[in-house]
């Protein structure tokens, strides 16, 4: 009996965890948090970093909010949540600028803007304020990783098309080096649009189409 219940919660948690990737992917399906999605995804690594930073905030705020949900009067719920979220954002902001300054710089303005990312507040409202700490954590992790997944995918796509590279590894040049380490081959530029603003829109548009097809 007990076992079964446990199993059920595990299954539930697993569902909470995986839904963020496809069925309820914040970017492709829910269309939330599009600014960082478009703004920072000039490369896969940027996308991944942004995604992970958001994940951190999501987990943190979800957990804390799930912890204190019973103590907060209804009418100051939102401001309280915002404070919690903003605190985590500030933490990640400080930490990143201290330990990964280069990455921090390339993400720029978008780190503080995690505060207004609708996913974070949305999750706090819709999930964490109603569920247990543990499942909120799982939910935050799932959603966050789903977000990171989307950003990495888009970043990867733009990087491949725009600079013919993936995770900063230049594909043509890399292959040429693998074959002949001494080569002085420099690869041509990619399709520049994809590292610029329009490319972000195009990339996301067609990824959404693709994702809808896949998740069907």
């Amino acid at each position, binding site marked *: 009996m007990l076992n079964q219940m446990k199993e059920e919660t595990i299954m539930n948690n697993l569902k909470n965890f995986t839904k963020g990737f496809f069925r309820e992917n914040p970017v492709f399906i829910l*269309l939330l948090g599009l*600014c960082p*999605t478009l703004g920072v995804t000039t490369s896969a690594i940027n996308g991944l970093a942004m995604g992970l930073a958001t994940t951190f905030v999501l987990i943190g705020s979800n957990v804390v909010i799930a912890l204190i949900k019973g103590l907060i009067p209804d009418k100051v719920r939102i401001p309280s949540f915002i404070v919690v979220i*903003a605190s985590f954002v500030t933490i990640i902001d400080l930490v990143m600028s201290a330990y990964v300054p280069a990455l921090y710089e390339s993400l720029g303005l978008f780190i503080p803007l995690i505060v207004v990312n609708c996913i974070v507040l949305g999750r706090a409202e819709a999930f964490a304020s109603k569920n247990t700490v543990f499942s909120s954590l799982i939910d935050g992790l799932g959603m966050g990783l789903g977000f990171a997944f989307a950003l990495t995918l888009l970043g990867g796509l733009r990087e491949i098309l725009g600079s013919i590279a993936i995770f900063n590894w230049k594909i043509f040049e890399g292959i040429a080096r693998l074959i002949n380490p001494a080569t002085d081959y420099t690869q041509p530029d990619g399709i520049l649009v994809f590292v610029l603003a*329009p490319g*972000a829109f*195009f990339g*996301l*548009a067609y990824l*959404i189409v693709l994702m809808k097809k896949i998740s069907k």
Partner: protein
Amino acid sequence: MEYILIIIGAIFVNNIVLAQFLGICPFLGVSGKVKTAVGMGGAVLFVMTLATIVTWLIYTYILSKFGIEYMRTIAFILVIASLVQMVEIILKKISPSLYQALGVFLPLITTNCAILGVAILVIDKDFNLTYSVVYAVGTALGFLLALVIFAGLREHIEKLPIPKAMQGIPAALVMAGILALAFMGFSGLV
């Protein structure tokens, strides 16, 4: 002249939506109809200007004074969130007609990252108060322009037989992409 250049730059060259990627959610969300787009744009213009002034003052006279600049994110968002609320209440009292026009959009603005983004940008750019206000107005006008143009486009294609897979957001994003491409023509203007 300088102010005009800031405004032109903010509207065309570094359009907040098409070049800086801020405020995309409302850009996609509230651009179904030209009428609502104008309403939202107006609300953003109003709140963005106000929020920029208030946050600039708070930053310069409180955070900076105490040496706690790092608290700006948390302070700004708190201020913006309550500002929006206050605006809503006050508007309702003093100008019901304006409230009717803007009211529904106000709550959406709290989570519009363009507002917070501009508040932070003017700090980053070390603008003084006048510059900041001009910049905020220009940016908001840019948002309004992009939103209205885009709403026109979306109203137009809504009536057309777009392939099923592309309907809605994907087609809108492609149009936004082409629009961004076209707006690149303005680069170097300022």
